[in-house]
């Protein structure tokens, strides 16, 4: 049995290695903020050796995707400063740039690459950030996203989430016409897509461990839904549940020790918590209605979930210590699949409005309620670990694709895949 699992792990690993970028996501920005900051990202001056990828292109795209920045095209730039002494501020003032990112790269004797970068304020004519970052040829994108994170944080005060990852499911027709389900992981910008698992049986509900090193998901490969966990590093995996009925909606606790899920082994969909250490399954809810889609509050003290105990699906919160349960949503007759932003007060959910399904947010303190998405059949919202953006799944021309919207609904963009239906995005924690 162990040997079989090991073999399976190796097989999955081989698969993961064999399939390279084949259905990479691309980005289409549809709207940004009204007054974006104008920033120029000068090409990184390459002092020794040519870099395999263009760092400033990646940084530029990152900043633009946040919707908060408008970037100056390289062809308009009058000079390419590699360090502070080479900056002629008037070159950037005439372009209308408020900020400038500059830098240079060097190959060290041990083969590593060192990038020295800075951020300058054009009007004030001063450098406000200056840093060094090291990497290898295969981590150029990591270096670029690191620079984006630092620049974003310096200018917005919010920690950047460009170095994070996404997990999602792609459903496509295989060569024999059968549906094929693929569990994928990519960078937050859709690049470096990697296959974690492929199956002819449905794969669904991917989620991350709080350390970002494992995924949890539902697979029907046994002929029934079952919950699995899988390591990103070596693609090895382990089955966690095999109960009769539903085994679904797994959600890892913030402390990493527990997994919330829905099971119907006792006859009805109920929320359970599995303790990874003791192996115990503890039932949380006890109601004849549907209770499903559990998720943790950021402090780990409560579970939010969907229940139709009031006659229509609505979102409830249960305190784990006291068992006290309160209803959180009251607008409309369909609110489901809740997620909380890292601030613990912005609730995002799937909301039905005039027969259409949109992503909505509700401030749990002010009760301010907003519909964030304008597309149709929207589902599976997932919030970035910095709380600035959320991703969700939608449909366009009959095809499933991912869309993103800022938490204030000002910025919107799509991430369509080249083939297949993309669905169920899950944004990783900070890595």
């Amino acid at each position, binding site marked *: 049995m162990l040997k079989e699992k090991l073999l399976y792990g190796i097989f999955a690993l081989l698969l993961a290695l064999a399939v390279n970028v084949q259905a990479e996501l691309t980005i289409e920005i549809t709207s940004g903020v009204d007054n974006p900051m104008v920033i120029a990202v000068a090409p990184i001056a390459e002092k020794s050796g040519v870099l395999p990828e263009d760092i400033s292109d990646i940084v530029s795209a990152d900043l633009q995707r946040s919707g908060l920045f408008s970037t100056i095209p390289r062809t308009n730039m009058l000079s390419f400063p590699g360090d502070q002494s080479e900056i002629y501020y008037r070159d950037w003032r005439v372009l209308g740039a408020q900020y400038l990112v500059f830098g240079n790269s060097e190959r060290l004797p041990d083969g590593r690459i060192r990038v020295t970068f800075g951020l300058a304020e054009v009007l004030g004519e001063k450098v406000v950030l200056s840093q060094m970052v090291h990497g290898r040829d295969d981590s150029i994108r990591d270096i670029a996203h690191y620079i984006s994170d630092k620049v974003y944080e310096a200018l917005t005060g919010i920690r950047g989430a460009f170095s994070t990852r996404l997990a999602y499911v792609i459903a496509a027709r295989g060569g024999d016409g059968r549906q094929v389900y693929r569990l994928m992981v990519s960078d937050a910008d859709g690049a470096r897509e990697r296959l974690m698992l492929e199956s002819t049986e449905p794969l669904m509900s991917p989620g991350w461990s709080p350390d970002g090193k494992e995924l949890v998901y539902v697979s029907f490969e046994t002929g029934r839904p079952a919950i699995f966990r899988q390591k990103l590093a070596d693609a090895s995996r382990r089955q966690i549940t095999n109960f009769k*009925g539903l085994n679904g909606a797994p959600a890892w606790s913030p402390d990493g020790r527990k997994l919330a899920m829905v099971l119907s082994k006792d006859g009805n969909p109920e929320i359970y918590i599995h303790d990874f250490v003791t192996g115990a399954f503890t039932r949380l809810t006890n109601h004849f209605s549907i209770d499903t889609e559990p998720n943790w509050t950021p402090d780990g003290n409560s579970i939010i979930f969907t229940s139709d105990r009031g006659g229509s699906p609505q979102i409830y919160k249960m305190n784990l210590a006291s068992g006290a349960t309160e209803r959180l949503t009251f607008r409309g007759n369909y609110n489901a699949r809740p997620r909380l932003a890292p601030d613990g007060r912005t609730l995002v959910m799937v909301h039905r409005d005039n027969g259409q399904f949109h992503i909505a947010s509700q401030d749990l303190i002010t009760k301010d309620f907003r519909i964030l998405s304008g597309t149709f059949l929207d589902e599976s919202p997932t919030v970035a670990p910095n709380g600035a953006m959320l991703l969700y799944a939608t449909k366009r021309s009959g095809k499933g694709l991912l869309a993103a919207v800022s938490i204030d609904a000002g910025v919107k963009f799509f991430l369509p895949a080249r083939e297949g239906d993309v669905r169920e995005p899950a944004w990783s924690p900070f890595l």
Partner: protein
Amino acid sequence: MSFQTIKTGFLIALLSTFLAACSSTSTEDGSMGAGADGSAGGVATGTAGDGSAYGDDLSAGGLATVFYFDFDSSTLKSEARAALNMHAQRLKSNPLYVRLEGHGDERGTREYNMALGERRANAVKEYLVLQGVNGEYLEAISYGEERPAALGSDESSWSMNRRVEMTKR
């Protein structure tokens, strides 16, 4: 590039086969929108009632093995009950392990639809048990919206997808 063309051609062929298949059965869910019972064609018209004649073919004699549901409902329609009465007779005299696969349409969230699909599968299971079939032989499994029978985003596709499929285990 040529691969793309071939694939598209294949998909079209597949789709047209599928559409042809749909159109022949579309009468049986035509009554759903109207909410009328209607004597739907193709459902429960089988004559084999003694149970012994059909062996292990669940659809022998043209007996329906797919049962459709209204939106957000797990209530069995009268034509489904009529077909299930026949299945119950057959299964009592010739016990078979049967899978009841519950499905939903794409609207709403995936895990909530898993729960709805299970409700539908359980409704069929409970009905068969009420008719005297041994529940040990029946397994209810939900696929939620993960395995649609029709791929469109309109009522005609959705009504094909809200279903329970009965198969041999």
